[in-house]
């Protein structure tokens, strides 16, 4: 019998190397998968990882698109990472993302056609607020009644999706949409449109905010008392009490920050790349962000890289689909492998395999 034994001190080098080993293992296993499907595995891996960055024909477009695709994932993942470090499990970022888009976007629709430089800052605040308040529901229920925040935040995703559907088939339905359940297109409303700041760079306001959040998140985590507090809360609830951390404050802060960032991500997405509110707006970014958070070791810089890597597999995956006819499902399996190998390698970094000599059941 084999059993896992905790290593007294996981190697620091290994902790940093884990994601790289996981990516390499994914390339190997994914390559085998593609080969079994009858595709050239080297070409496939090249198209997924290399072409979006360096292919002459598409890269000038796809490089900036990596930022566009990754921005909401990174923004949300950094918010989530604080809570995950402190054992506060916000699984409902998707719902907060939706509410940010609905509240912020709805504010813009209500103001239409008022053109003013104040509109955009206002809807940003409303978007963040929408996500924040939605996350406060699980926070308050947790603090007041000790309700499990995993369940509450997850269930609220479905409530948010229904709320969105009600809004776009009702009050937020576009008056010029021929009866279709979509809102007015934000690119028709200059003051609220989250446009590209420099053409063909993909840089929109949300990308800038994301970069700022990476920096601020890094400072918070490493240099600020709040970073210390959440790390202590995650390691030992008892120790954190001795250190003077109020667990209720930690819950409220962690859910509040992740909710607000998810709301911002939703607002930037709906007023920019998505362009309008519709029932098709939620695409599971809030769930993908959980993967990104762990792939990035719950560290802002790691999350930045992990978000870009996820975006790369999406965009490269699309290229691989139409250039090599690799089915979408195979690309999803490939993305799944990434998380699987990361968690697998992670276990081996923190634990070692031991032959169990004292096993009772074996004899």
């Amino acid at each position, binding site marked *: 019998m084999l059993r896992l034994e905790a290593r007294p001190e996981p190697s620091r080098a290994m902790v940093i190397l884990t994601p790289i080993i996981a990516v390499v293992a994914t390339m190997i296993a994914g390559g085998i998968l593609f080969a079994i499907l009858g595709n050239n595995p080297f070409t496939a891996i090249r198209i997924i990882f290399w072409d979006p960055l360096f292919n002459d024909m598409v890269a000038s477009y796809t490089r900036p698109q990596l930022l566009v695709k990754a921005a909401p994932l990174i923004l949300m993942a950094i918010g989530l990472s604080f809570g995950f470090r402190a054992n506060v499990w916000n699984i409902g970022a998707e719902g907060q993302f939706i509410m940010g888009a609905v509240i912020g976007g709805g504010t813009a629709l209500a103001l239409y056609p008022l053109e003013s430089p104040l509109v955009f800052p206002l809807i940003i605040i409303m978007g963040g607020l929408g996500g924040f308040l939605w996350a406060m529901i699980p926070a308050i229920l947790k603090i007041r009644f000790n309700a499990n925040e995993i369940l509450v935040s997850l269930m609220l995703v479905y409530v948010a999706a229904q709320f969105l559907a009600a809004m776009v088939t009702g009050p937020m339905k576009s008056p010029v949409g021929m*009866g279709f359940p979509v809102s007015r297109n934000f690119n028709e409303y200059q003051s609220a449109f989250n446009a590209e700041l420099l053409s063909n760079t993909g840089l929109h306001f949300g990308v800038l905010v994301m970069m700022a959040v990476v920096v601020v998140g890094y400072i918070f985590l490493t240099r600020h008392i709040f970073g210390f507090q959440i790390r202590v809360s995650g390691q030992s609830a008892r120790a954190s009490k001795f250190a003077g951390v109020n667990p209720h404050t930690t819950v409220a802060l962690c859910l509040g920050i992740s909710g607000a960032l998810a709301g911002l991500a939703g607002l930037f997405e709906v007023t920019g790349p998505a362009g309008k509110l519709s029932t098709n707006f939620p695409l599971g970014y809030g769930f993908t962000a959980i993967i990104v958070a762990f792939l990035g070791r719950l560290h802002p810089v790691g999350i930045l890289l992990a978000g870009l890597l996820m975006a790369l597999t999406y965009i490269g995956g699309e290229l691989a689909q139409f250039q090599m006819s690799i089915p979408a499902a195979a690309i999803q399996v490939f993305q799944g492998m990434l998380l699987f190998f990361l968690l697998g390698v992670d276990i081996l970094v923190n634990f070692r395999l031991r032959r169990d000599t004292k096993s009772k059941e074996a004899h």
Partner: protein
Amino acid sequence: MNLIKTLLAGAAVATGLAGAAFAQDKLKIGFVYIGPPGDMGWTYEHDQGRKAIEEALGDKVETTYVENVPESADSERVMTQMALSGHKLIFATSFNYMDHVMNVAKKFPDVKFEHATGYKRADNVSTYSARFYEGRAVIGHIAGHMTKTNTIGYIASYPIPEVIRGINSAYLAAKAVNPEVKFKVVWAYTWFDPGKEADAANALIEQGADVIMQHTDSTAPMSEMKKHEGIIGFGQASDMGQFAPNPRVSSIIDNWAPYYVARAQAMLDGTWESTDTWHGIKEGMVKIGEMTEAIPAEVRASAQELADKLASGEVHAFTGPINKQDGSAWLAEGETADDGTLAGMDFYVEGIEAEIPN
């Protein structure tokens, strides 16, 4: 061994091939699909159209596709990548790709776009759709005859004109042969989600529906119907013949192949122009799948007769007198609906007891 050979050969090719994959003289045609071709419904038929192009035009063309593309910024990116990598004709086969098609088309004036079921056009953007409502009239006719509970269930996707038009058309045809008939409508808010579609079918069966129609893309409702005695349904978008003779008793087939081949040919001839196409049973874009023995012979005959008359233009699926649901007059005796009203249809006809979600 084969695997190792593939790997070795692959390594050899990959090292010298960067970029070469894009070099093409053939006409490259890209397809953007909302679901997988394996849905055996909507996307399956578009993929049949794609294959028909390859078959008809052989090595003059090369077709590619991306499946499961959400109706979001992702679709814009996929179409841009296609345009950048040398595709000259791009078919976008779901309604909400519309604004994204327009955005990409603006950036690539040399690339032609074909958008299914939309209404926005440009010099390099055509739209096309089928008069599905003619098929709905035929299956409505069958359903009116076949229902024993006088309750027909309808799995609707989104409350958009195309779907509302189908419900109205099916209802009018069913009511014409069975005045007692009632419609129950469930809105799934999805085009393709086998789980939700199956739930919707079950909900309708529980509410007493014994004939079920669907305006969603998967065969999941069929699988559910099969589990129950005496429930029948119709293949949607594709024949879904694997469920014949029961529960699938007939079907509405979207036959895109002739249109797709014609458009690709026009590109090769240099005669492609922006057009708006809306074809029905007459042109063969809508076909009625084989009616099985589960339908009595005389009903099969009358349904076929209706299909023939719709094709010849002798009958229009919306012929007055028809009132709107609120009782106000819409079409007078003998008057037929104009395409403009049909294209923007946002009301139920009189007699349907459901409400359009709002």
